[in-house]
């Protein structure tokens, strides 16, 4: 059947094309097939990276394309690395990344562990838990703005009901100390299901016979969790942390929709500062240098993280 299809294809190939293809080696044919992908990758990933590196050494402004571009050397980098506002934005980013990852990993793993118990209706609950992850960040940002409303918001009402504080004094988005937490809550709500899904895959990959052997050895449930479940699911947990870490370092949409970096600059994460420099102040060269600094930070961390992940997998 397959041979016949191949023969039909060979017969249907126009003679000039067939003559051309006949001379190509297997390796050449492989290159022919992957070259469109490589070209696309070069055009949309590699070229912009090198272009941004070039721009980071210049005073280029995207709103003044006809102006003469001067080479500034490392001046943009020196300015960024001496700027106190950007240093504070970095600390805000670190605070945000630390808490979101910690909460998402803890809650995500706990949910995965509970779902893995295979209780009645667990498929329904899995689907329900996954819903936030499927929503668009724009939708999530907008409806959480309503939830956080001090007058009509359900979130404020629930907190007021539990704590007895009047709902009008729960200003989640405009209070300096609450605003960062409002974003952390939304990001955790939205992306915990993603961490749960990866952890669930890890838990489901643990062979049942290991638990049976542990039962024979009369290992307690606690002991089974610490000696079997956690070490065997660890590579998956680490993978989830890596994905969320990279994603949260460049977090923009949720912060922009919920607080826009405010009140003041309390929630101004690095990506918001970058956007302001690039598209409000139009300092393209300066913002390119900032983007390269963030890129090196995430790239370096991802490298050592992958190294640690490989070590855990080899154990």
């Amino acid at each position, binding site marked *: 059947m397959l041979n016949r299809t191949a023969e039909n294809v060979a017969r249907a190939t126009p003679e000039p094309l067939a003559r051309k293809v006949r001379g190509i080696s297997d390796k050449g044919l492989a290159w022919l097939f992957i070259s469109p992908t490589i070209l696309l990758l070069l055009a949309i990933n590699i070229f912009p990276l090198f272009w941004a590196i070039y721009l980071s050494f210049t005073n280029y402004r995207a709103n003044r394309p006809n102006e003469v571009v001067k080479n500034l050397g490392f001046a943009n980098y020196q300015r960024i*690395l001496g700027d106190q506002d950007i240093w504070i934005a970095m*600390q805000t980013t670190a605070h945000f990344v630390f808490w979101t990852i910690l909460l998402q990993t803890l809650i995500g793993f706990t949910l995965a562990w509970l779902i893995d118990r295979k209780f009645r209706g667990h498929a329904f609950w899995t689907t329900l838990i996954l819903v936030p992850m499927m929503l668009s960040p724009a939708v999530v940002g907008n409806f959480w703005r309503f939830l956080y409303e001090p007058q009509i918001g359900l979130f404020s009402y629930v907190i007021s009901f539990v704590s007895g504080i009047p709902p009008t004094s729960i200003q989640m988005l405009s209070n300096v100390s609450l605003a960062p937490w409002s974003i952390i809550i939304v990001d955790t709500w939205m992306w915990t299901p993603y961490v749960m899904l990866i952890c669930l895959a890890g838990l489901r990959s643990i062979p049942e016979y290991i638990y049976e052997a542990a039962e024979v050895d009369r290992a307690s449930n606690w002991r089974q969790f610490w000696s079997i479940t956690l070490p065997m699911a660890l590579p998956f947990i680490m993978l989830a942390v890596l994905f969320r870490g990279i994603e949260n370092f460049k977090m923009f949409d949720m912060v922009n929709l919920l607080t826009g970096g405010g009140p003041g600059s309390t929630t101004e994460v690095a990506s918001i500062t970058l956007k302001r420099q690039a598209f409000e102040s139009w300092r393209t060269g300066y913002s390119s240098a900032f983007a390269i600094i963030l890129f090196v930070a995430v790239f370096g961390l991802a490298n050592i993280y992958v190294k640690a992940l490989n070590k855990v997998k080899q154990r």
Partner: protein
Amino acid sequence: MENIATALIAIGFLMLFQPFALSLYTYSFITMLAGTVMFIIVSKFPE
């Protein structure tokens, strides 16, 4: 060598996001860049 590169990246990363001294923040990028370049090179060496 790979361990030195890893340590440089980690130290640079902590320097970039720490809230204690601006001077540490200033030298964070060069530390991280040195570590990353070193890591890329030494990770290609046969073990």
